[in-house]
Every structure is written in C-alpha cells, then in structure tokens.
C-alpha cells in the first residue's frame, strides 16, 4: 500500500465473506499483525445494500444459491427526500419468489427523512412456512398507496441474511 491511499482503490458496494482485512492485536504489550476475513470476523452472514433512486422502479433480488435457503436476520431502511414529494405512503416489500413469506416496511414520502425496520409480515410465532422454499430468491420491490407515485428521493435498504443449507 506504499504511497497509495484507500480512496485511490477501486470501490466495492458490498463485502464478500472471504474479503480480507488487516488488523493489529495487542498481545503481551506488543502489537502483532494479522489478517482476517470479514465473514470470520463479523460472522457468516451477508449484508445486502441497495441504494434505490426513487425515480425508477424498485425491483432487485438477492440470488439464492442452488440447494440453499435464504434466511433474513434483519432489515432496515433510510429515506432521504428529493425536491418534490407526494405525501403518499411508500411500501418496501421483501419476499420470497413464491410470495409465501415476506418482510415489509412503510414510510411517508414527505419532505423530511425517515428510517425504520422491515418487519416479518407472516410467520410471527410458530410456523411451518416462515421462510421461502429451497433455491428461492428474495425479491425486493416497492408499492404505494393513494394517487400518484413517489418519484424523487433516495432510499437505502440494508438486509442481513444467511444462506442456509438444509439437512
């Protein structure tokens, strides 16, 4: 890294579990050098981040590897208004592709920022159908209520999830 600053490097928008970072750890009064992997250090879960430009439709997905389930640990969002807003409610929807399980969040499209959590819409309490099916992607989309549609502002959505391999 001599003479190169971090900001000179190409940018990533999300981390991979096997991305390496360096650290120093004080042991017996001496700073020793180590490297580790983000998945090892933070835990074997993913953090999916999406910056939604609200002038476009929100339609993205988290791809499920073959032979696995995707299990959401938590999700939240922040909304930053643009110059024009509609006062309509904006719904954030995170669901399995079969639609049998979902998380939702909702905020008003107003002139000041908002932030909140996405909540499980189904599966509170014991359930036989709390997650999506095997190999099912998670679909991130938006909806709204009332007339018109939000078309300005940005919304950052962050989702923590694990890939789960069944027995």
């Amino acid at each position: 890294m001599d003479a190169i600053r971090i900001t000179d490097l190409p940018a990533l928008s999300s981390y991979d579990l096997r991305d390496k970072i360096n650290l120093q750890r004080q042991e017996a009064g001496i700073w020793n050098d180590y490297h580790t992997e983000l998945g090892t250090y933070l835990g074997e879960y993913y953090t999916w981040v999406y910056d939604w430009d609200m002038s476009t439709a929100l339609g993205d997905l988290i791809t499920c590897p073959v032979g696995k389930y995707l299990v959401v640990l938590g999700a939240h969002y922040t909304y930053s208004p643009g110059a024009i807003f509609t006062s309509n409610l904006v719904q954030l929807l995170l669901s399995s592709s079969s639609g049998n399980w979902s998380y939702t969040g909702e905020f008003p499209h107003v002139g000041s920022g908002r932030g909140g959590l996405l909540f499980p819409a189904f599966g509170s309490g014991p359930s036989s159908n709390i997650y999506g099916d095997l190999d099912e992607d998670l679909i991130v989309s938006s909806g709204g209520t009332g007339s018109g549609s939000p078309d300005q502002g940005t919304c950052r959505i962050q989702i923590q999830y694990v890939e789960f391999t069944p027995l």
Partner: protein
Amino acid sequence: MPNKSISQLIFTADREDLLDRFYVVRSSTDYQLPGSALPPKLNIASRSITTAQVLDLNSTPLEIVSNAPTGWVHIPVRGVVEFDGGSADYAANTELSIGSTTALGQLLVGSIADRTDPNALTVVSGASGTPSVSGDSLSVYVNTGNPTTGDSDILVTVWYYTLEL
C-alpha cells in the same frame, strides 16, 4: 498508509457510514469499501424514571436519546424496562413505548403492568409503521393515557441504530 502500522494511526470512535472507507483485499486485489456496506452500529441509552414521572408519562414524554445530527436518523431496535422495588403494579395504561419525539408512534413497546421481572421492549409491526424522523430524538412515553396507580421507579434501556440518510 506508508510506513505506519495500525497502532500508530489516530484512533476514532466515530462512524461515518458514507464518508468512511475500509481497505479490503478480494482475490489478491486491493479495494475500498464504504462504511455503509457494513452492518449498522448498535448504540445503547438508558434513563431512570421516577414513579411520579411514570404516572405522568403520557402527558409528559421523556427524552431517552438526544437528537440525531442533521441528515441522520435513530432507529430503535430493542429495549428493556426494569423495576426498582415498589409495592403496587402500574395499572390502566401500561404500554411503555419508545417513539420518535416529534411524531410519537410506538416503535418499541413493552408492559409495565408486572414489576416482578424486567420486561422486553420489542418492535411494533404492522402495515402502517411509524418510522423515525430524521434529526429527531427518541422519547419514552406511555400509550393512550397516564397509568392510574403504581409506585416503582423504572430504568429504561434502548438499543438503537443511528444511520446517515
């Protein structure tokens, strides 16, 4: 970072999601990663509330987390309410709540109707969620009306994210 080890660098306790950049290596190639790509930082705040204040906690909400900076928002995630003695449970209005101060809505809720054990403050879901307001503080209040009786001081703790928009 020429010729300096990590332990020689200036320590910072702040987190600037949009302005921080981390150095990572992927497949032997160097990259930068923004702070916003990492899981959110979890903060904690507590406030002791006297019996007299609890009995007026619908009329007079009390701040537990001070205002977020401009362009940032507090999002409460979990909490707990603990009881300090007393001889009578709170009655009538007993939904202790955490809300965004300028637009009080139940972001977290827990019961103060039973003082024998600490009670959890958990998130309130629903189609019409009331999200936190940017730049706002978080307050503790009792939903609907003031409790009518009860005599235990309480300690409210909340865990929350503070995120940049």
